[in-house]
C-alpha cells in the first residue's frame, strides 16, 4: 500500500541534481524546466469547480493585484458536502462585479499571527485532535493545490501547548480507491491501552461516502508522522435507506457498559437531520443500532456530529466515555443547510441509544450555537493531561474567492477553547480561549473607570492594535437603568442597524481595527433593552457593516442574546489577530467570531476606541489591553536547529 508523503509546499524551488556530469543532460533538464515554467507559470482564476489552482506564491506581484470580474461559484455541493466557497452571501447584483482593487500590502496584512493556519492554500474542518505522549496533535482538511476547496487530504501539525505549532508532512493523502475523491473529516479515539484509532470519511472513486480506519505506523514516534490505512477499508458503507452522499464525519468513540465502543455518524432522511449509531469491538466490524441518537425535522443534513459528557458540578472536562449521575451530555451538529454549529444539552440513555434535550426549544440543530459568527465543522477532544475538553472550530473567509486566490490562502482555526457547562445557568455551555494563549501576552495597558457619556467615542492609546488580547468590563449608570422606560423592542443583532442604531441603553463597547478617521471600524458591543416588569435583556454583537470600505467582503452583523445574571457587570474578552476577531461575552456564554478585511485600518494605522452610542446611559468601563506576540507557527525541520 504505497504511501505518498509529500511535504507541505514550501517556497523554495528544488535545486537541479548537481551530480549530473553529462552536459547534454543538464541542457535538456534546463530546457524542460523552462518549458514547464512557461506552461504553468502565473495563476489563473478559474470559475470551474475542481480545477487545480496553482497559485504562484513565490513572488507576489509588486504593487497591485490585477482586478478581475468575479462570479459566485459553488464548490463542494456537487461532491456532496456543504457549501465550501465563501461568496454566496454577498448582497451584490447578479452577474459580474468589479472587485475592490486589493493590493499586496492589504492582502498580506490579513494573515494571522497566532491562529493556526498552514503556510498557504485552503483549509477547512479540524480533524482528529488529540493529546499523545506530550504533544497536541491537530489534523485538518487541506488542499495542497490551491486556495479553494478541492483535492482534500489531511494536513498535520503538533504543538506542546496548542499555540506554538510545528507543521509536519501530510498525514494521509487520497491514494486509495475508497478515498480517491477526498480524505474527509474524522476523529481520533485513544484506547485505554494507549492505542490510537482514527476513523475518517473517504469519498470513493465513485463519490460514495464510506468510513475508514487508520492508525499510526509507529506508535513510539511521539510526532506520529506516518499513518497506515487498514487493509480491510472501508469498515462502513452507507446502510440501506441512507443516501450515498449523506454519510460522513464519524465521531470519537465512547465505551458502553457492555464494554463495546460506540460512535455516531450524521445523516438525513429527506429534510430530517439524524444521527446513526454503531457499536464495535475492534473498529473493523460494526453493528448498526436500531435507534437513532436523535432526529430533528427540517434541520437537513447533519455534518460533523459531536457527542460528549460535561460535568454538572466541576469545571474540569470529562473523558468521552465518562458517564454517571453528575453528568449531562452535549450533542452538537453542523447544519449543512445554514453552515452553523448548534449544540444541545440533555441526557443520554445508553440502553435506548437515545439523547433527550433538556429543553425542546433548544433541541439539536434548532437551539443554541457555539458561536454566532463564522464557526463551523467544530470538534472537541478530551485533553487528559490537563483534564479539560477542548473545542476547535473552522473559521472560513468572508472575503471573495478571488481575493483568497490572490493572497494564496484561505481559512484559519479558532484559538482552541475549553468547554464546560455553565453551572450558574445550567442551560448553556461556557467557552474560553485556552490558558496557553496568555503566554503570548507582552506588555499591557490598563484603563480604569473611563466614563463615556451618551454618544461619545474615547480613544484608547495603545501602541499597536492588530494583535491584541482585550479584557473589559462595563457598567451602565444606575439612574439610566431605572429611568429608562420599558419597551417591547425586540433586538436582533443580524437585523439591527449595528452600532449606528441608537437605543436608550446601548449600543456600547469597543471599536476594533478602526482607523483614526473612523472610515473603517468593527464594533463589538452590548445592546441592552428594558422589557416589561423591568427585566433587562442584553444582546452581544459584532458588526462588520463598516469594517472595510471594500465592496467584496461580508458586511453582516453577528451576535445573539447573552444572559447577564444579577450582580454581573457586562464583561467581554476580544482576541484581535489581523483579519480575525474572536469575541466572548460574560465569560464565554455567547461567542462571536468574525473575519474583517480593512483596507486602511491596518498595520500602524489601526486603532482601538471605546464607544457609547446610547441615547441615555452613561457607561463606565475598565480595560486591560495586552499586545500579543506571534506564535511563530512554522514547519518542523528535523535537520536544522530549531
Amino acid at each position, binding site marked *: 500500500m504505497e504511501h505518498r508523503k509529500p511535504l507541505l509546499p514550501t517556497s523554495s524551488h528544488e535545486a537541479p541534481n548537481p551530480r549530473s556530469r553529462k552536459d547534454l543532460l543538464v541542457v535538456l533538464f534546463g530546457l524542460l524546466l523552462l518549458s514547464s515554467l512557461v506552461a504553468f507559470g502565473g495563476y489563473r482564476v478559474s470559475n470551474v469547480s475542481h480545477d487545480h489552482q496553482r497559485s504562484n506564491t513565490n513572488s507576489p506581484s509588486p504593487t497591485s493585484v490585477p482586478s478581475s470580474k468575479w462570479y459566485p461559484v459553488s464548490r463542494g455541493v456537487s461532491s456532496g458536502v456543504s457549501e465550501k466557497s465563501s461568496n454566496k452571501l454577498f448582497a451584490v447584483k447578479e452577474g459580474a462585479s468589479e472587485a475592490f482593487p486589493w493590493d499586496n500590502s492589504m492582502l498580506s496584512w490579513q494573515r494571522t499571527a497566532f491562529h493556526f493556519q498552514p503556510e498557504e492554500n485552503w483549509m477547512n474542518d479540524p480533524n482528529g485532535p488529540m493529546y499523545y*505522549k*506530550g*504533544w497536541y496533535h491537530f489534523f485538518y482538511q487541506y488542499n495542497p493545490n490551491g486556495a479553494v476547496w478541492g483535492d482534500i487530504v489531511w494536513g498535520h501539525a503538533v504543538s*506542546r501547548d496548542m499555540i506554538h505549532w510545528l507543521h509536519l508532512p501530510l498525514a494521509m493523502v487520497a491514494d486509495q480507491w475508497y478515498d480517491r475523491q477526498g480524505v474527509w473529516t474524522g476523529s481520533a479515539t485513544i484506547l485505554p491501552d494507549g492505542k490510537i484509532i482514527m476513523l475518517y470519511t473517504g469519498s470513493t472513486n465513485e463519490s460514495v461516502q464510506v468510513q475508514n480506519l487508520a492508525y499510526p505506523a509507529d506508535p513510539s514516534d*511521539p*510526532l506520529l508522522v506516518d499513518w497506515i490505512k487498514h487493509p480491510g477499508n472501508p469498515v462502513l458503507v452507507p446502510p440501506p435507506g441512507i443516501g450515498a452522499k449523506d454519510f460522513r464525519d464519524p465521531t470519537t468513540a465512547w465505551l458502553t457498559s457492555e464494554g463495546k465502543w460506540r460512535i455516531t455518524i450524521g445523516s438525513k432522511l429527506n429534510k430530517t437531520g439524524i444521527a446513526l449509531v454503531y457499536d464495535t469491538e475492534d473498529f473493523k466490524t460494526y453493528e448498526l443500532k436500531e435507534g437513532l441518537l436523535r432526529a430533528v425535522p427540517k434541520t437537513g443534513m447533519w455534518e460533523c456530529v459531536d457527542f460528549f459528557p460535561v460535568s454538572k458540578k466541576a469545571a474540569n472536562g470529562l473523558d468521552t466515555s465518562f458517564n454517571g449521575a453528575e453528568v449531562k451530555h452535549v450533542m452538537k451538529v453542523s447544519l449543512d443547510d445554514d453552515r452553523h454549529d448548534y449544540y444541545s444539552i440533555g441526557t443520554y440513555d445508553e440502553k435506548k441509544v437515545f439523547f433527550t434535550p433538556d429543553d425542546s426549544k433548544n433541541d439539536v440543530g434548532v437551539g443554541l450555537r457555539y458561536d454566532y459568527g463564522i464557526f463551523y465543522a467544530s470538534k472537541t477532544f478530551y485533553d487528559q493531561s490537563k483534564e479539560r475538553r477542548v473545542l476547535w472550530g473552522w473559521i472560513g473567509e468572508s472575503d471573495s474567492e478571488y481575493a483568497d486566490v490572490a493572497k494564496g490562502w484561505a481559512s484559519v482555526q479558532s484559538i482552541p477553547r475549553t468547554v464546560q457547562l455553565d453551572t450558574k445557568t445550567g442551560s448553556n455551555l461556557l467557552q474560553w480561549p485556552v490558558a496557553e494563549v496568555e503566554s503570548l501576552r507582552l506588555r499591557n495597558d490598563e484603563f480604569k473607570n473611563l466614563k463615556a457619556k451618551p454618544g461619545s467615542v474615547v480613544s484608547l492609546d495603545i501602541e499597536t492594535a492588530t494583535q491584541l488580547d482585550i479584557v473589559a468590563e462595563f457598567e451602565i449608570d444606575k439612574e439610566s437603568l431605572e429611568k429608562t422606560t420599558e419597551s417591547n423592542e425586540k433586538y436582533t443583532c443580524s437585523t439591527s442597524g449595528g452600532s449606528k442604531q441608537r437605543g436608550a441603553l446601548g449600543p456600547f463597547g469597543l471599536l476594533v481595527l478602526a482607523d483614526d478617521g473612523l472610515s473603517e471600524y468593527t464594533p463589538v458591543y452590548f445592546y441592552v433593552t428594558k422589557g416589561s416588569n423591568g427585566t433587562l435583556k442584553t444582546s452581544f454583537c459584532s458588526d462588520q457593516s463598516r469594517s472595510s470600505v471594500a465592496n467584496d467582503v461580508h458586511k453582516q452583523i453577528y451576535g445573539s442574546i447573552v444572559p447577564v445574571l444579577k450582580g454581573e457587570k457586562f464583561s467581554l474578552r476580544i482576541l484581535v489577530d489581523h483579519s480575525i476577531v474572536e469575541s466572548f461575552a460574560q465569560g464565554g456564554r455567547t461567542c462571536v467570531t468574525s473575519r474583517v478585511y480593512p483596507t486602511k485600518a491596518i498595520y500602524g494605522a489601526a486603532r482601538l476606541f471605546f464607544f457609547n452610542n446610547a441615547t441615555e446611559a452613561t457607561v463606565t468601563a475598565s480595560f486591560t489591553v495586552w499586545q500579543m506576540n506571534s506564535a511563530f507557527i512554522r514547519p518542523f*525541520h*528535523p535537520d536544522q*536547529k*530549531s
Partner: protein
Amino acid sequence: MRRIPNLVSSFALHIILLASTCIPFTLSQPSVPWKEGNGDLADQICKKTPFYDLCSSILHSNPLSPKPDLKGVALLMVNNILANASDTLSYIEGLIKSTSDRELEQALAFCAESYIPLVKYILPQAADAISQGRFGFASYCISDALKEINSCNKKFSGASQAPLGDRNDIVQKLVDVASAIIKLLLKG
C-alpha cells in the same frame, strides 16, 4: 604461486600497518576515559558550553563507555537533567504539601505543571532522539525544556526566590549545557 596483483598486495600491506598501529592504542585505553588520552574530549566539549565548570564536573563524575563520543556525552547530560528534574519535581510536590501560604502554593503548583511534562515526556523523548541520531528533534525537545523551566522561574522572580532555591537554577544551567552540546551534534 600465482602472482598477486599489485593493487591488492599494497592494499593488504596498508591494512596490516593500520591494524598494527591501532591495536596498541586501544589496549592502552585507561579505565577512566576522561583522564590522560581522552581528557581533552571533556574539556573540548565543555569549553563550547556556557557553563564549563558545571559541564566538566558532571562529565568527570560519571563513568562512561570506553569510547566516549559527543553523542554519548549529550545522552549523559540529558539523563542527568532528567534525574535532577525528577528530584526537583518531588521537592516541589513536597513543598506544596507542607505550605499554608496560598500564593506560594499556587506558584508552586504552576511550577509542578511545568515540570511534569518535562519529566514525563520532554526529557525522555530528547534522550530517545539522541540515541536514535535524531538530533534535530532532540534540539526541539531541549528548547521546549528550557521554555518550561523559564516559565517556572518567572513565577519566582522577585522577593520569594527562596523555596526552589538553586534547584531551578541548576536545572536551567544543565539544560543550557545540553542545548549547546546538541547544537554541536547538529553541526557535525
